[in-house]
C-alpha cells in the first residue's frame, strides 16, 4: 500500500525528482560554482595550523618616515618587462619560462608582430611626411611660376610669344593637376595604411584583455636609520663641553616595503591590501588558471611601484630630516644642550674601513 502511494507520488512528480537527481549529480561532480552548490561550504576555510617562530632577531631600527599609498599593476606589464629582461633566455631556452608564465608565449608572439607592424607604419608615415613637404613646396613653386607666366602674357607684345607663353601655362596647369592626382592617390593609400594600423593596435590591446590579471595594492614603505652597532666613535661627548654631544649615524635607508593580504585589520574595519581587480584567463577551464609565479610577479610589481612612488614623494629626504629632529629631541630630553647629528657618507665609510 505504502509502496504504491510512493510510486504514485513519484509518478506524479517525476520531473522534480529528476531535477533533484541531476542537481545532486552535477553538484557532486563539482561542476557547479561554489555559490550554487548547497552541499559545499560557501567559503573555503584554512585548516588550523600552528604559528611557528622560526627566528628572533635583535635589531635597532629607527623608523623616521612612513609612506602610505595605493598602486596597481597588471600581468601584461610584467610580460612586457620580461621581454627585455629575459631576452637571452627567451631566445635560447624559453620552455621553462613559458611553463611558469603560460601567457608569455602568446604575448611575445603578438608583441613581436605588433612591433614589426608599428615599425613598418612608422617608416611609411615618415616617408609620407617627406612627400607632403615636397608636394607643398612644388605646389608653391607652380603657383609662383603661374603668376609669373600670367604677368609675362599680359605684358608681352607679340602674338607668337604670347601663344608660346600660353602653351607653357597650360602645360604647367596639366602638370599641377597630375601632381594633385598623385597626391590624392598617395593620401588615400596612407589613410588606408593608417586605418589598418589603428585596427591592429586595437586588436593588440583587445587581445591583451582576454588574459589579464590586475591587482590593486595598498601598503606602506618605511625608511629610517639603523642604530644597531653604534660605537664610541660614532657617539661621543665634546671634550670642551660636557653638554655638547656628537652623533654619527648611517644615511637613511628603506627598511620596509609591504603590501599584505590585509592593509588594515581591526575588529571594527578590515581593508584588503591586495585586491583582485581583474582576473580573466579567457577560458572556462581551470587548467588555464594563473600560475602562482604569475600571481606573485604582479604582486611584486605592485610593491616595486609603491617603493618607487615613495621615493619620488621624497621618503628618504624626509627620513633624513626626521631622523635628525628625532635624535635632537631625544638627546635634549636627556639633558644635552647642543646635539650635532652627522650622517655617514660613503666616503666616510671608506675612511672607517681603512
Amino acid at each position, binding site marked *: 500500500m505504502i509502496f504504491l502511494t510512493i510510486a504514485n507520488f513519484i509518478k506524479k512528480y517525476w520531473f522534480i525528482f529528476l531535477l533533484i537527481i541531476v542537481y545532486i549529480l552535477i553538484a557532486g561532480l563539482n561542476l557547479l560554482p561554489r555559490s550554487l552548490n548547497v552541499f559545499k561550504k560557501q567559503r573555503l576555510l*584554512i585548516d588550523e595550523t600552528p604559528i611557528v617562530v622560526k627566528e628572533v632577531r635583535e635589531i635597532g631600527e*629607527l623608523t623616521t618616515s612612513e609612506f602610505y599609498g595605493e598602486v596597481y599593476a597588471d600581468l601584461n606589464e610584467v610580460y612586457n618587462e620580461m621581454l627585455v629582461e629575459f631576452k637571452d633566455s627567451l631566445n635560447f631556452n624559453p620552455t621553462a619560462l613559458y611553463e611558469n608564465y603560460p601567457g608569455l608565449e602568446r604575448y611575445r608572439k603578438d608583441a613581436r608582430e605588433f612591433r614589426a607592424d608599428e615599425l613598418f607604419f612608422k617608416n611609411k608615415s615618415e616617408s609620407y611626411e617627406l612627400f607632403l613637404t615636397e608636394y607643398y613646396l612644388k605646389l608653391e613653386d607652380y603657383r609662383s611660376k603661374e603668376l609669373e607666366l600670367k604677368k609675362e602674357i599680359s605684358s608681352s607684345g607679340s602674338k607668337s610669344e604670347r601663344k608660346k607663353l600660353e602653351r607653357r601655362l597650360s602645360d604647367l596647369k596639366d602638370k599641377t593637376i597630375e601632381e594633385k592626382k598623385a597626391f590624392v592617390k598617395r593620401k588615400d593609400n596612407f589613410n588606408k595604411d593608417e586605418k589598418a594600423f589603428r585596427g591592429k593596435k586595437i586588436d593588440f590591446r583587445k587581445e591583451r584583455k582576454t588574459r589579464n590579471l590586475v591587482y590593486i595594492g595598498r601598503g606602506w614603505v618605511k625608511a629610517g636609520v639603523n642604530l644597531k652597532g653604534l660605537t664610541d666613535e660614532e657617539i661621543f661627548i665634546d671634550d670642551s663641553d660636557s653638554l655638547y654631544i656628537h652623533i654619527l649615524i648611517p644615511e637613511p635607508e628603506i627598511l620596509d616595503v*609591504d*603590501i599584505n*593580504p590585509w592593509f588594515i585589520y581591526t575588529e571594527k574595519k578590515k581593508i584588503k591590501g591586495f585586491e583582485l581587480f581583474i582576473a580573466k584567463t579567457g577560458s572556462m577551464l581551470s587548467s*588555464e588558471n594563473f600560475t602562482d609565479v604569475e600571481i*606573485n610577479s604582479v604582486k611584486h610589481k605592485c610593491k616595486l611601484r609603491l617603493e618607487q612612488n615613495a621615493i619620488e614623494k621624497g621618503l628618504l629626504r624626509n627620513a633624513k630630516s626626521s631622523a635628525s629632529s628625532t635624535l635632537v629631541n*631625544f638627546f635634549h630630553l*636627556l*639633558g644635552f644642550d647642543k646635539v650635532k647629528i652627522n650622517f655617514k657618507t660613503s666616503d666616510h665609510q671608506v675612511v672607517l674601513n681603512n
Partner: protein
Amino acid sequence: MLINFRKINKSILLLFILAVVSCNRSEPDRAMVISKLKNSAKLSTVEYIVTKVISSKDNNWFAKDAYFFAETEATIKAGIDLDKLKDEDIKIDGVKISLLLPPVEILNFSYPSEGFKVIEKYSDEAAIFKWNSIDVATKDDLYRQGESDIRQNIDDLGIVNTAQKNTRLLLTKILSLSGFDEIYIDFKEQESLSTPDEKLLKELEEFLNKKK
C-alpha cells in the same frame, strides 16, 4: 506522461531566484587609501620571523578532492614609539638616569607574497572549470585568513618580553655612550599589544570626514 510546464516554469524560477540570492555579494571597501608621507619616531628592537602552513581541502562527492598547501612566512617588528616619551618620564641626577619608556607596540607587520611557497605536490586545483577551482581569488582569501590567524595570535608569541629586553640593551648602550653610568629603564604598564592599524584607520577616517 505529460510534462507539466507550469511546474517546470516554477522550478526554473526557483533556481533563478536561488542563483540571484547566492550571487549577491557585499561590495568591497574601495578607495580608502590616500597617498601620504608622514614623520615618525619608532624604534624597532626585535624582529620575529614566524611561519605558518596554509592548507585547505575542498571535498567533492564524486569528483576528485581539491587541495591547497602553502608554506608562508611573516615578519613582525616590535619596539617603542619614541614620540610617546615625555619630559616627565626621564629623571636625571648627575650620571644617574632613569627612564620610563612607553609600552611595547607592534611597529611593522609584513606578510609578503614573496614568502608564500605553494607546495605543488600537496596542491591540486582538481576542478575542471575555473569557477570552482582554487583560483587566484580563493587563494587570496586563504592568505587573508592566514594573516588573520597570525595577527590574532601575536600576543602569544612572547614579543613583549623580548622587545623590552632588546630595547633595554640598545638604550643602555646609547646612554652609557652618552656618559651615564647608572641607568634604570622601566616600561609603562603594558595593556594589549597595539598595532599600527588602529592609528592608520583613525587617520584615514579623519581624512575622509574632512573631505566630506
